């Protein structure tokens, strides 16, 4: 038995063991003191974070090449671990307030996170599929975590049914790729594709089906329909975690699989990606215009952001643009993570039991009553819009410029126009916060406030010096993809 295989995925192994350990420990923690579980799980995440960062410079390969730990995995693993930390920070007080305090939340969150991490390590389609399931199943449960709340239960069921539906497509796609090439591991498939010893149509159809599954996780139109309902129904901390983690995991899989496995297919896949990106940007932004519920608004905004991300990926077949595109996407994902958690922290501060406090009108007067919250929310919304000198601006800038570089200026134009539209609904919230009179009620819990404060600070500072983050993304890719 060779331990070096396990050594490569230490953070993952640790996280899983910690989750199981927490499941057991939680039995002895009395109800009402689940804060201990929260702290323990946060500690576990921090240790995992250290383990990830410790993983050194060299690229590790393990389990017969079905797992690869490189800069790409490390960058995204950090993103996922930070997301999970934010998911816990947002959850504890929220769960207590809404009478949902149950210890299972934390192990499930950890297991889902480990699925996301596995997604970044996976170098084999079977691994990819399993990672997809591993991250999804806890999310299905978490989406329905709000007990006795029909909306939450409905969200859970919808997510589960449609998720299973799309998993089926992925699995079918994996099967077809295997049938066409005889391999499931990336290098094997890539080699077969290079040799031409495969059936191109079958291979292409397989790729299309796999794309469907990733598109579902990342909420690309037309596989996005679940997301507004689920985002609205699920408990807000879960939504926040899902909208960052699941989306990033979907994109991680997309990046890895398409760049390593399907680069030769780009001629055929590019028009498809083009159409998906355009549709996603368009539908996400347009429908967000008429939303009056903040959670739905953020859901559609999240769809739109998927569109921007995909836009940069459209020229992925063009080797000279590819690394720019991936660096830009990693940058954007990090920016999106910071901004999203910050915004959801504000939403959570205003949310009350039974889905109250979530209408845009409930934000009236926030600017006068709670200037800190309103200011941070404004920063996040501006960053979402992509106003210059925020982090979001640089994110969009890099994405758009890769699209243009890759020769898809029409797509960049669509992106630009739709982000103009997005300014309307983002700024409407700002207007409501500052211009309308009202007496909003806010729960001032420490952790959500901290999350939004840290998020705002990061958005501003990195907005002034985006080079720091971009350098991280670029150097992550230097180690290879």
């Amino acid at each position: 038995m060779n331990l070096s295989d396990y050594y490569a995925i230490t953070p993952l192994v640790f996280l899983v063991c910690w989750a199981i350990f927490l499941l057991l420990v939680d039995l002895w923690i009395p109800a009402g003191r689940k804060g201990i579980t929260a702290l323990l799980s946060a500690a576990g995440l921090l240790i995992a974070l250290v383990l990830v960062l410790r993983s050194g410079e060299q690229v590790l390969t393990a389990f017969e090449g079905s797992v690869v730990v490189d800069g790409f995995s490390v960058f995204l693993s950090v993103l996922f671990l930070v997301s999970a930390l934010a998911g816990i920070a947002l959850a504890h007080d929220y769960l207590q307030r809404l009478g949902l305090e149950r210890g299972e939340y934390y192990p499930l969150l950890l297991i889902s996170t480990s699925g996301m991490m596995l997604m970044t390590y996976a170098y084999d389609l079977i691994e990819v599929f399993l990672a997809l399931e591993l991250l999804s199943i806890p999310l299905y449960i978490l989406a329905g975590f709000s007990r006795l709340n029909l909306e939450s239960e409905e969200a859970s069921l919808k997510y589960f049914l449609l998720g299973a539906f799309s998993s089926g497509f992925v699995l079918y796609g994996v099967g077809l790729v295997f049938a066409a090439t005889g391999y499931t591991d990336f290098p094997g498939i890539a080699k077969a594709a290079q040799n031409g010893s495969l059936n191109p149509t079958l291979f292409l159809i397989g790729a299309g089906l796999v794309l469907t599954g990733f598109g579902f996780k990342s909420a690309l139109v037309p596989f996005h329909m679940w997301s507004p309902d689920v985002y609205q129904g699920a408990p807000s901390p879960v939504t926040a975690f899902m909208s960052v983690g699941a989306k990033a995991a979907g994109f991680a899989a997309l990046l890895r699989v398409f760049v390593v496995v399907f680069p030769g297919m780009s001629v055929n896949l590019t028009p498809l990606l083009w159409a998906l990106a355009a549709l996603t940007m368009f539908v996400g932004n347009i429908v967000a215009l008429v939303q009056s519920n903040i959670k739905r608004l953020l859901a559609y905004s999240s769809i739109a952001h998927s569109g921007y991300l995909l836009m940069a990926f459209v020229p992925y077949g063009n080797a000279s643009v590819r690394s720019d595109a991936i660096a830009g996407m990693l940058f954007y994902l990090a920016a999106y993570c910071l901004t999203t958690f910050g915004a959801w922290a504000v939403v959570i501060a205003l949310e009350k039991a039974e889905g109250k406090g979530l209408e845009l009108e409930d934000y009236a007067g926030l600017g006068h009553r709670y200037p800190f919250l309103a200011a941070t929310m404004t920063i996040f919304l501006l960053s979402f819009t992509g106003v210059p000198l925020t982090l979001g601006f640089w994110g969009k800038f890099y994405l758009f410029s890769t699209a243009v570089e890759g020769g898809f200026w029409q797509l960049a134009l669509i992106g630009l126009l739709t982000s103009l539209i997005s300014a309307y609904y983002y700024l409407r919230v700002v207007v409501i916060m500052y211009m309308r009179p009202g007496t909003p009620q806010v729960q001032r819990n420490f952790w959500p406030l901290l999350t939004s404060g840290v998020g705002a600070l990061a958005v501003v500072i990195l907005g002034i010096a985006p080079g720091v983050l971009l350098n991280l993304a670029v150097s992550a890719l230097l180690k290879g993809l």
Partner: protein
Amino acid sequence: MTIMQIIFLITASVTLFAALMVVSTRKMMHAAMWLILVLFGVTITFALLETRFFAIVQLVIYIGAIAILIIFAVMLTRRSMNADVPQVNRNWWLVMVSSLALFVGLVTVMSVWEGFFVTARTAPPGGENLVQLGTALVDPNGFVLPFEVASLVLLAAMVGAIYVAAERKEK
């Protein structure tokens, strides 16, 4: 026609029929039962293909665990599921057309592939014995990672089922 082929044909038609029943029966509980039959049919198909590993996995995981979970879920949510609503909605034709298109398309695509007509290789003599299978499941060069991850998936699903059930009890 060999015995194997006859068994296969019977299994296949039973599986298909059961699958049809899953979506057409009005009672959720019955649907779950039909589903177990479908899964069982797939198990037999694997066995016929002499891939015992998959047969066992199918039996243990899908019938042993997932089906049980589904039955749990169905029992627990019985009250909120009423059987009064119509079975089909007005979009049924659209679903029919697109499903058919998908099916026909996939079959056509596969039928142009030469591999479609190749007879399955028989497993190497004495190839897959249980010892080898057992080793493969815990060998880093074998299937240990997928196996462990799959078990983790199950664990998560179980926790979820228990969570849902526990809530109901409190209510």
